[in-house]
């Protein structure tokens, strides 16, 4: 009875008695969810276009952020550093396409997954070799990212919103909208969708797969850079950030591997659910449940919809 009370009644009572705290938790979950969604977006872009489950997305994020900070530390002005980092991400996209994807075309999915893990190892070693293993702080001021916080008087209490988080959410929304327009309205976007639909059919009407892959990996690289800037600003830029990218995986399967809106909705569900769970139910289990709660949430959803919330229905034929 005590247990049932602790699990079902007590957290709800807490939520009702302190709505400002609840709002704060939900907001933090929302911001985390937006950032998870951004990482998941990079995964989805690549998975849709090339069927590659890109494990390197997390390290691409760290690598992009490290390149940016590393260049800025060398005295390069922030905007030029940003441009150079984007150029580096383009180089990475071309390199991956040439050296990894093209020789492995038509191999089973698991081989491609392993290849991206190889890329991950390479980038970890390379990044540490070039930039050193110490955590660096993000150049927020030079990039004109706001700092400080806004205090809102809500529900008779006070909810604190970091300006940085608001900027992150705004930029995420702009980016998703931009990508949506890019996919729907431009020539390249149409080609991308064609490739996502059917590789062979796209080839037969003259879409160059190689080119599309470079574009997709580059887009994912830019998304990774944006994600890296905001995660880097919230904590330090270090290889530990890579762990965050593992959080994007439940988001991914929750939303469906092939769906852009799925990545966003999944990100928000996981982000908010995780923070609420940690804050209200975490103490029951001794804390730290954030590390696996997201997976359990995703798993429960998957049991009812095996292809994720927005994924394409899996039709199996003999």
């Amino acid at each position: 009875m005590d247990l049932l009370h602790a699990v079902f009644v007590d957290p709800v009572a807490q939520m009702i008695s302190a709505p400002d705290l609840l709002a704060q938790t939900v907001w933090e979950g929302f911001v985390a969810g937006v950032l998870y969604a951004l990482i998941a977006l990079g995964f989805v872009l690549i998975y849709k276009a090339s069927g590659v489950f890109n494990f390197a997305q997390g390290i691409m994020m760290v690598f992009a952020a490290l390149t940016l900070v590393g260049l800025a530390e060398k005295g390069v002005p922030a905007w030029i550093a940003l441009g150079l980092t984007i150029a580096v991400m383009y180089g990475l996209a071309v390199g991956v396409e040439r050296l990894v994807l093209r020789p492995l075309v038509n191999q089973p999915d698991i081989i491609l997954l392993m290849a991206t893990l190889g890329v991950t190892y390479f980038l970890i070693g390379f990044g540490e070799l070039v930039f050193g293993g110490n955590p660096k702080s993000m150049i927020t001021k030079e990039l004109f990212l706001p700092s400080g916080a806004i205090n809102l008087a809500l529900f008779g209490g006070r909810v604190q919103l970091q300006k940085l988080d608001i900027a992150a959410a705004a930029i995420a929304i702009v980016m998703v909208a931009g990508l949506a327009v890019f996919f729907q309205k431009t020539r390249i976007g149409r080609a991308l969708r064609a490739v996502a639909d059917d590789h062979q059919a796209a080839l037969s009407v003259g879409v160059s797969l190689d080119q599309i892959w470079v574009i997709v990996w580059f887009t994912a690289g830019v998304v990774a850079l944006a994600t890296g800037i905001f995660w880097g600003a919230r904590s330090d830029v270090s290889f530990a950030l890579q762990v965050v990218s593992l959080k994007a995986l439940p988001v991914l399967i929750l939303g469906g591997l092939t769906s852009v809106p799925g990545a966003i909705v999944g990100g928000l569900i996981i982000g908010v659910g995780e923070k609420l769970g940690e804050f209200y139910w975490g103490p029951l289990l001794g804390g730290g449940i954030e590390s696996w709660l997201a997976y359990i949430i995703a798993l429960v959803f998957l049991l009812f919809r095996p292809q994720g919330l927005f994924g394409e229905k899996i039709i199996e034929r003999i």
Partner: protein
Amino acid sequence: MFYREAGQYKTTYAADMAIFPIRQDRFGVALILFVAFVIIPAFGGPFFLNTMMIPFLILSLAGIGLNLLTGYTDLLSLGTGAFMGVGAYACYKLETAFPQVNILVWIVTSGFVSAAVGVAFGLPSLRIKGFYLAVATLAAQFFLEWCFSRVPWLVNDNDSGAIEVPNATLFGVFVTGPNATPTTRYLVALTIVAALAWIASNIVHGRIGRMWMAVRDMDIAAQLIGIRLLNAKLLAFAVSSFIVGVAGALMVFLWLGAAEPAAFNIDLSFEILFIVIIGGLGSIVGAFFGATVMHLMPIALRALPPMVGLPIEAARVDQLTTMITGILIVVFLIAEPHGLARLWRTAKQKLRVWPFPY
């Protein structure tokens, strides 16, 4: 010329289905076992046994376990590290609670504990497939890792949060703990690994193995020909987790001597997966090849610069090793996506028809 089966007649079905149907193969295996059981312990130094042979055997065993699941049944799992942890912690709990019982009994029992946990986390595999399942197994990885670090009962309320292997004897000889010599630990590991590899090989050659392979090739078709998917998949999870759990127990008891929860993190899962894929999916011997590459290659890379006299600091060497490992993985995958086991088979075929090309 020497590797040819001409004149070896198989007169029974059993002879035809033997694991090593060719006399030269049987001779080769006997030779390998002789070297492993007699020559290596007699001449191998403690460093060689401790840092190369024992980890190699244990990682191979874990590779065999994962191969049964991923290579033979096509259920991609990223939770291997955690299942190894289950084996290790179960063995630790049992050994410290009942130290008077033979340690080998507890190592095997901890395999069964791991198998039970594996079946529980294998249940979603009935509905979820492919990458969705891989991410679902990550739930096992992170949940179990959290248990290892947050449940003090598992480490006997040890303040350090780590498990330390007690001294245990077998027939009056120290087998585990600080008092055991590397040679004893090597021999115990070798015996267990050889026995389990033999059992695994028999399983995949028999009815169960064929059932798994039918599920791997197409599970709906397998269901249509009368294979119960529930039984087949859960059995794969159980046997795989059993072997992986034993490997985990061996890893702590015979190799590391003490372990923190971080020893069973996701990197270990990936390392085992690499062993399976580079060695060859769906091949027992492949796990040994893969373990050779994944465990001995970094050691060789680390030893290389001092050997040629390049003055490089240790941190640099680690970074370069990570980088080169990444490159080599991609190179291996491009050169032979079916793994080293396929190369091995091709080489044997070439040898058989030598000096003719086919």
